[in-house]
């Protein structure tokens, strides 16, 4: 661990054995360099926060719903009727919101059934062609590709399953030790890191914009050439700056 990491409260890192300590190496010139581990740690924090946050929210919502359902019989619907003005549009929208998951699942299953039927129908006609010995290598290649795709998906799933617990652990550790504040202070104090983030994002955005501008300007030039050729007029050599200034 280098000098930059000494500012992080040690408890946040040491108590999670599965996680490598975040390493932010400094070059000889004093500039901070981000390693792949830093990226992984940041990613773990994001994933952990999302998983833990959604779990927490779900728990809270469950508790609220139970509380509401307990006292449901006492609720007088006419009060709410008055508050919403009895607007049919609002009720339609609310109804639509509650029906959407049902419609979605129905739509998905219908689409699934329709596509399997279509596949069966099409394959009935294509079978005599695809089962021919001539197309054997193509079929094998296709099967290989499918198998490779499946293995990629399963390996990704495996990585997800391995990474989720340490991500959760990292966030739990951060929250329980109240070290988020310390981490944020660390980030704020390290102005170089902030500057670097700002610089990098500006540079990326700027480069993309310059690229877009350049490309659109070259399309303009090409269009000008085409129009000049169609209208049989001479191309302007110099920009018409005289008329502008």
């Amino acid at each position: 661990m280098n000098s930059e990491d000494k500012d992080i409260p040690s408890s946040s890192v040491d108590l999670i054995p599965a996680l490598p300590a975040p390493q932010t190496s400094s070059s000889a010139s004093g500039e901070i360099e981000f390693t792949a581990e830093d990226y992984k740690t940041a990613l773990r924090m994001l994933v952990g926060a999302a998983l833990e946050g959604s779990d927490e929210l779900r728990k809270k919502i469950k508790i609220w719903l139970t509380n509401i359902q307990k006292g449901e019989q006492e609720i007088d619907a006419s009060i709410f009727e008055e508050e919403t003005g009895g607007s049919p549009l609002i009720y339609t929208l609310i109804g639509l919101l509650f029906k959407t998951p049902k419609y979605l699942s129905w739509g998905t299953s219908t689409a699934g059934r329709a596509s399997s039927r279509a596949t069966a129908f099409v394959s009935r006609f294509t079978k005599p062609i695809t089962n021919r010995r001539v197309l054997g290598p193509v079929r094998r290649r296709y099967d290989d590709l499918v198998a490779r795709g499946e293995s990629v998906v399963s390996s990704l799933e495996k990585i997800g399953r391995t990474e989720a617990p340490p991500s959760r652990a990292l966030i739990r550790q951060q929250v329980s030790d109240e070290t988020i504040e310390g981490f944020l202070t660390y980030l704020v104090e390290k102005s170089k890191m902030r500057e670097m983030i700002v610089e990098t994002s500006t540079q990326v955005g700027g480069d993309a914009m310059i690229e877009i501008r350049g490309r659109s300007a070259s399309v303009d030039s090409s269009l000008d050439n085409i129009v000049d050729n169609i209208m049989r007029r001479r191309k302007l050599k110099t920009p018409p700056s005289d008329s502008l200034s």
Partner: protein
Amino acid sequence: MNEKSLEIDGRKPAGFFSRMMAFLLDIILLAILGLMSGLVIFLVLHFFRYKQILDFVKSLLGVKDQVGQFIALISPVLFLVVLIYFVFFWTLVGYTPGKALLGLQIVRQDGQPLSVGRALLRFLGYWVSAIPLFLGFIWVLFDRQHEGWHDKISKTHVIYILSKYPKLLE
């Protein structure tokens, strides 16, 4: 970007494609802005039960249902949003977000920034250009100075502010 160097280098009028792309980007942004602001106003009016306003809109445009009300309400809002959007950006910085992305700027023929009056005139010119099947916009493609009818009406130019592509400015 260095404004001084742009004044020397970036004087070439912008071409049709860049201008069209910038305009499309602005339109997309405006559609989102207009819908959002229309929805917010509609909900606020409903929340505070300003039925008189909604009834007035309803009677003015002869719409009966709530969707019709919403569309009737959103039309003037959208027009206002569009007007403010263009005039605000043209007078303040000389470019809308779409034009900024494509590296374009609107200036007067003497190179000065637009006044509010000229920006309004240019905005009105948009409609003049649009009414005869967008001929006023297509004019940019064939005009030697890449001027649309709205440019000619308001005596303005759309120029590149590209400083990193000197070859494109030749």
